[in-house]
């Protein structure tokens, strides 16, 4: 699959077909997810209507994390095989990934305001989500700050890979730190125990977000390939003559 798509031409064919499908799927899934989530699901006894933020919040955080994982994996492929397409993939994942993470943070904050009365808590999950956002921003800053794109790709790839090795450490430390210090920890309902009426819109939204991410990434990469084609033809190289003195 990977080596199949590594060819830009084949990739272009695949993406031309897949992008609109992903887009439509995303539209349908998110639409129905919102319908079930906002209208056709029970209120929470404790939290009332504000529980519905969950259908935006939880999938957003998950998609953000998935985007980071994809970015790190694509960077690894690019680093080993020096394939420009995987660099483009990693790069295309960064901005949407950061956006989903930010969305997760914002909706989480809103949710927090309604259920705990504060926008923010220094809680383990929340803190590690914030750090994830920092990692995304750092990755994008490297791309922005280095002119030569071949170089930028490799450095950014290293940043993504080192970050991914460190993510488990961050998560572990932060969770553990939080349990040590935070006595009145807030209980979040565990996903597996959720009733179907909550699970259904949650899953619809999650897949919807994922396809939306896929659509964004594929269209961005198609754009890149197209603009690389239309870039003005390079001027001819110098002619070289070698003569004996």
């Amino acid at each position, binding site marked *: 699959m990977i080596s199949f798509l590594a060819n830009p031409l084949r990739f272009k064919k695949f993406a031309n077909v897949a992008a609109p499908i992903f887009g439509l799927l995303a539209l349908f899934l998110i639409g129905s997810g919102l319908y079930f989530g906002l209208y056709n699901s029970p209120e929470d006894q404790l939290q009332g209507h504000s529980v519905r933020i969950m259908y935006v919040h939880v999938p957003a955080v998950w998609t953000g994390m998935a985007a980071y994982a994809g970015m790190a994996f694509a960077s690894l492929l690019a680093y080993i095989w020096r394939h420009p397409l995987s660099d483009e993939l990693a790069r295309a994942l960064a901005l949407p990934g950061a956006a989903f993470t930010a969305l997760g943070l914002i909706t989480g*904050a809103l949710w927090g305001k309604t259920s705990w009365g*504060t*926008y*923010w*808590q*220094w*809680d383990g999950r929340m*803190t590690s989500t*914030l750090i994830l956002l*920092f990692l995304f*921003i750092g990755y994008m*800053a490297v791309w*922005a*700050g*280095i002119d030569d794109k071949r170089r930028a790709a490799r450095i950014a790839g290293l940043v993504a890979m080192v970050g991914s090795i460190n993510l488990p450490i961050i998560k572990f430390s*932060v969770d553990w*730190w*939080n349990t040590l*210090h*935070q006595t009145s920890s807030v209980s979040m309902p565990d996903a597996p125990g959720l009733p179907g009426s909550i699970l259904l819109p949650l899953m619809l939204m999650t897949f919807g977000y994922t396809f939306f991410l896929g659509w964004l990434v594929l269209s961005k990469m198609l754009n890149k390939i197209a603009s690389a084609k239309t870039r003005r033809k390079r001027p001819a190289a110098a002619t070289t003559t070698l003569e004996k003195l």
Partner: protein
Amino acid sequence: MNSIGGLIVRDIRIALRSGGAWLLGLVFFAVFLSMSAIALGGEFKTLRPLAPALIWLAVVFSLLFSFEHLFSDDAEDGSLEHIKLSGMSMNAYVLAKVCAHWLLAILPLIIALPLAVLLFDLPTDILLGLFVSMVIASPALVCYGAFSGACLVGFKGGGFLLVLLTIPLVIPVLIFSVSGAVSFQNASLFQVLEFQALAGISLIAAAIGIPAAAAALNTVME
């Protein structure tokens, strides 16, 4: 006047070209606050009373390091020599740099203040107090910083020396700002004694700092 404007425009343009590097003062601000909150255990109960002090420390440290390159880039690559030979007065040059720096480094922090307050769950009147104290105190910070930055030109690894030079000048600003922000809760703007003091310090800093920086640059270039 024209060339002051030109300089400000150039500095802003260079900043925008640097791949978002200028925005990262803001990032440092955010990172400093998060790191402090994490290191201090993360409970609002402990954090809330410390917040004004932490936010002001974040402002000071986020600015501090930005002064290192304020003049040294121009000095090292030779453009300062050409500016001197252009007949532009050093005072005008320093003024232009200071204005550009205010726009690039301080304005974003002021705009981001509400976010910082979110992190500590602070009441709005303290936010307002912080806001006013930053507006009043920022000229003092920039002018003192510019003076230290000018003294350090041509001094490799000067960042830390910068700290040493600027800090004694900045400590009064820090003290007045923090306590001004806190006492603003119970008073109207013009009653807060600390803010009056800050305004005075800002005036003095501008009146002394800019010519002193110009003099330092003149000396350093020789």
